[in-house]
């Protein structure tokens, strides 16, 4: 069941996966090769800056991969009103677990490409003793970020269209209401800022997206 679902998802997504794997592999190499001629040999600050550019780029690639694979992969179910998925003899929980598992395996491929590309790119530069490359943690972070993006789109694609619109509308209204409240009632700003910080910093739910993305750091 799992293997067959993985095969179906792979067949449906393979073109996009191939594209993201190539881009994820090439991005660290291209950025470093483009930057290297302009770097001072011992400029740690510049190396960290380039490592940050690599990290941010791979972060964007990972999130886009997660969004695309979810959008593409579940669109086929949505087009048929989820009739096939709902008519199969599995509990919703098990179906969800299978889809989450297959998504994890597929999203591991761009993350693996990031790791290989980042390793090769980091090998091209001679790092001062105070600096280190973090290809492994960058790839892990990319995997988590793409999985989180995938899960968000999955949740929206799999609820009824009307409910998805409601969820999005509630989120937009909440953001507008909080912003307006913060402007009108200055006393609430600290609380709202703390809540925002919790959401976008570790260990908050979206911390992995907004944390520090870098290939080279101290």
């Amino acid at each position, binding site marked *: 069941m799992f293997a067959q*679902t993985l095969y179906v998802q792979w067949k449906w997504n393979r073109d996009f996966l191939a594209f993201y794997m190539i881009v994820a592999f090439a991005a660290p190499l291209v950025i470093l090769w483009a930057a290297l001629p302009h770097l001072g040999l011992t400029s740690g600050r510049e190396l960290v800056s380039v490592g940050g550019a690599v990290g941010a780029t791979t972060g964007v690639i990972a999130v886009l991969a997660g969004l695309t694979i979810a959008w593409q992969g579940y669109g086929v179910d949505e087009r*048929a009103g989820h*009739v096939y998925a709902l*008519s199969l*003899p599995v509990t919703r929980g098990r179906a969800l677990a299978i889809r989450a598992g297959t998504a994890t395996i597929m999203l591991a491929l761009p993350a693996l490409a990031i790791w290989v590309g980042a390793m090769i790119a980091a090998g091209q530069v001679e790092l001062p003793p105070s600096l280190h490359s973090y290809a492994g943690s960058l790839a892990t972070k990319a995997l988590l970020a793409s999985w989180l993006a995938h899960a968000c789109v999955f949740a929206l694609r799999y609820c009824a269209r009307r409910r998805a619109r409601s969820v999005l509308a509630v989120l937009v209204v909440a953001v507008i209401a909080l912003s307006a409240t913060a402007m009108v009632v200055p006393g609430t700003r600290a609380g709202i800022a703390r809540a925002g910080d919790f959401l976008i910093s570790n260990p908050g739910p979206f911390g992995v997206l907004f944390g520090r993305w870098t290939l080279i750091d101290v």
Partner: protein
Amino acid sequence: MSHAITIDGLSYRAGRHFAIRDLTMRVPNGSVYGFLGPNGSGKTTTIRLLLGMLPPVDGTVTVLGHEIPSGAHLALARIGYVPERLHLYPMLTVAETMRYHASFYTRWDAAEAERLRRAFDLRDEQRVGRLSKGEAGKLMMLLALAVRPELLVLDEPTDGLDPVVRRDVLAALLEYVSTHNATVLISSHLVHEQERVCDWIGVMDRGRLVAEMPMHAFRGGIKRLRIAGAPALATSTPFGILARRAGPGREEEWVVRDWRDDMTSWFSAGETALREVVDLDLEESFVETLRAARDAGGRAA
């Protein structure tokens, strides 16, 4: 009599204008139950409710002994389902679709699936998205039959198919039912097709089940009577009057249900004379039943 499907007081609302209201329905074990109704009457919604795809607002549904929707996955393992439109993944080939489907069913009969694939003239490497409507219908029927179901739920399975494909699909269905004693719920608005294969009939209209009876009762019990000297008010009749219409001269036409031949004696007792008893075919019976239900609904409103 035990029932493969039992629905009691089922209610569901979809949007502002459509609702299933207080639906009670029984599909006897081993029967071929024709689920008739005009387009938009609620047949597909009822089917989706009994398969656990939609959550009911009220009422209970039991399918093959399992409460729905909580036990839907257990019931679905014993059900072959053909929806009204192609629901399979278009990028898979026929062989891949069969492998994918088989992986969810412990009862999957690979040999039977292969036999049906050959009988239906489907090629392994054909992409589902490129199948003709007839081929897609045959593939869906293949998948439904190869899980060796105890219950087949078919939602307009032959709608839009050419006569040759329709005959192939129905032949495969009847062969399976006769050898496995399976129960079939077959929804359709093609009344003549139902007449050939069904032994029970349920008629759905505007979200309500307006008639449910054995086919012989439906076909033989609904008659058109030509009557002279009809009373203004016909009470205490031994049959149900579905409709009354003015006929030629002082005659009237009555469409009645639950008719038996010995009921002619009811007319000889008074001044009312029965001129003729006309048999209705299934389509006429269906139309008259719908008309009567709508008239009654209109009066109640």
